[in-house]
């Protein structure tokens, strides 16, 4: 008993110090399957699994942002939820500052939790409509008994509000009195209140208007510098991910297909899916309109309940060969820091940064 307590105390002290290591979070072979169908029925209606996250590994570097991007059903949100243990993993490991957290006991997880927070997509359902702004932001502080007195709590909450650009007299209002952007600020203040090291942002701006998106993205960027935060930034839109991320991981049907530095990924993608994804982004410049088209992906997303064999992308891939239908491609490093899971990675992938350079010349 005392040994456990000693270990907890040690963990607490370690987490209180800033982290010196390179990889704040490391995910290894993470899997999350959901069971569907009935256990008792045979055949099609019988038990099967949706492999929402299937063998995903990546690291989040301290003070940096890792973007996770993919289309609906690719498992990006499930990955985030599993890391923070809103969902329990099926298998795999998650290391936070070198500590395995996905199997940690409830008590020890209590100590870790303040360090990993989350910002949600929908600013309308992520705030309890019956709670005042003050109580919403104070909730994490109260849960973890951070403040010794009511006065200190008040000070901390108002401090957080000013950090995210909310006026202090908003504290006694209810969420419905705010616009989407302001609500998202409230959500950010709540996530920041415990001074976490890692924030998982699950599509934090996709429900907002363009001009408000820019406000929130800029806020997140300035907070990162101020508090030395690391982000996992989950989004379906490449533009936002590009803007905030140092490195980007591309997911397709529960698996990572490519991971590289942002500029490299946008300039020369190696995976045909990434190439198609980049070609699909509408570019806000009519002068570049005619130059694209050829790399557009055809076909629909297959269902994650019944993913294609071999390389999961082979049904939509223009370069598909026999081996792609049979063998799952290995996750390998094609250039320093540039990983890809493809049997025939594109040699000179057409990104959209490169073309812009050409256009300027």
């Amino acid at each position, binding site marked *: 008993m005392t040994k456990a307590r000693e270990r907890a105390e040690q963990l607490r002290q370690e987490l209180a110090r800033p982290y010196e290591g390179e990889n704040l979070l490391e995910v290894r072979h993470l899997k999350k399957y959901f069971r569907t169908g009935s256990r008792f029925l045979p055949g099609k209606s019988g038990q099967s699994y949706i492999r929402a996250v299937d063998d995903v590994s990546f690291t989040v570097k301290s003070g940096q942002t890792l973007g996770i991007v993919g*289309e*609906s059903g690719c498992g990006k949100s499930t990955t985030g939820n599993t890391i923070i243990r809103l969902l329990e993993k099926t298998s795999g490991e998650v290391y936070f500052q070198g500590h395995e957290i996905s199997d940690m006991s409830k008590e020890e997880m209590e100590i870790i939790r303040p360090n990993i927070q989350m910002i949600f997509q929908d600013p309308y359902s992520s705030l309890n409509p019956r709670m005042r702004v003050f109580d919403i932001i104070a909730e994490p502080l109260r849960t973890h008994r951070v403040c010794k007195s009511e006065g200190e709590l008040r000070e901390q909450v108002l401090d957080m509000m000013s950090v995210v650009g909310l006026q202090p007299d908003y504290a006694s209002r209810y969420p419905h009195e705010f*616009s989407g*952007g*302001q609500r998202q600020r409230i959500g950010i203040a709540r996530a920041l209140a415990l001074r976490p090291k890692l924030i998982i942002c699950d599509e934090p701006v996709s429900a907002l*208007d*363009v*001009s*408000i*998106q*820019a*406000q929130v*993205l*800029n806020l997140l960027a300035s907070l990162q510098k101020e508090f030395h935060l690391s982000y996992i930034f989950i989004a*379906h*839109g*490449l*533009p*936002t991910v*590009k*803007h905030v991320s140092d490195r980007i991981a591309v997911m397709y049907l529960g698996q990572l297909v490519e991971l590289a530095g942002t*500029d490299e990924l*946008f300039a020369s993608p190696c995976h045909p899916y990434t190439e*198609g*994804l980049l*070609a*699909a*982004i*509408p*570019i*806000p*410049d*009519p*002068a*570049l*309109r005619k130059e694209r*088209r050829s790399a*557009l*992906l*055809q076909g*629909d*997303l297959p269902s994650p309940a019944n993913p294609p064999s071999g390389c999961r992308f082979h049904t939509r891939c223009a370069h598909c060969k026999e081996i792609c239908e049979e063998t799952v491609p290995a996750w390998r490093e094609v250039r320093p820091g540039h990983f890809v899971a493809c049997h025939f990675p594109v040699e000179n992938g057409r990104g*959209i*940064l490169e*073309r*812009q350079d050409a256009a*300027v010349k």
Partner: protein
Amino acid sequence: MERQTTLEVRNLNVYFKTAGGNRTQAVRNLSFQVGSGELLGIVGESGCGKSVSSLAIMGLLEFPAIAEADKICLMGTDISKNSREEMRKLRGSELSMIFQEPMTSLNPLFTIGAQLSDTIALHQECGKAEAKRRAVEMLEKVGIPRAEAVYKSYPNELSGGMRQRVMIAIALANSPKLLIADEPTTALDVTIQAQILELMRDLIQDSNTAILFITHDLGVIAEMADRVLVMYAGSIVEEADVMTLFHNCAHPYTQGLLDSTIKVHEIHDELRCIEGVVPSLRDMPSGCAFHPRCPYAQEDCRSQRPELRKTAEGHAVACLHPLRGRWNHD
């Protein structure tokens, strides 16, 4: 190229009746025209009145919203005073619309084929067999593989992208004069969005349908539109052809929108944002509605409401102090 005017809207106003007998104005003096074969983009943020205006043109506004217009001319005939029944006949044949949600805009209880051939049979005088033949033809035209099989399937058996293709097929089934597309790709994944945009471009290339394309995404506008209306708080703030808008815009709001759009194709994109929030309809600022958020606002912007003025051929702006060449591409 000389274009025939398909739709002309003059001074469209939309009001919402509120509880106390008051009314708030959602759209103010909207005037524009679209020519045949032209794709007019309408861009703006939520609450700017872009969707409400399109519903008003379709005659689909319901209480408490009320539309008033000097005229709404479709192919030269004024339809603003039309009765409900007359409008109903126009919809689906001359006028048609694609909505944002492909999941909810199809009736889940009927097959794709039934919904499509109903639309055809309703407006074209033809028998059941003929309607079916045309329906399958339409499905093939919008790039649906195995059209015969899809004809017999129910909406829930199709993916979002396929459903939106079906919606486009229904909308175009009777070769309408005007098609209104209200955020047709917002609910779709990026790769599917690209497919749908490509499809729409192909379909309109060889038809003379005029299209109103409503979106909040400047990227989509840059890809699709010939001409663009920028709306803010119920009014048009700028009207220009797409090149001018992106390279030589004159309204500070347009500039702000462009600045806060992420430039995916540039290495170091800087994101400048528009401060503040969109004003609510009940609480409109005096003078220029944009002045509280405008970095160039001057004293007269507070009191004087700017009218939409022509500054060059095909370029109009509603600003007292329009920008000149401040946002150039190099």
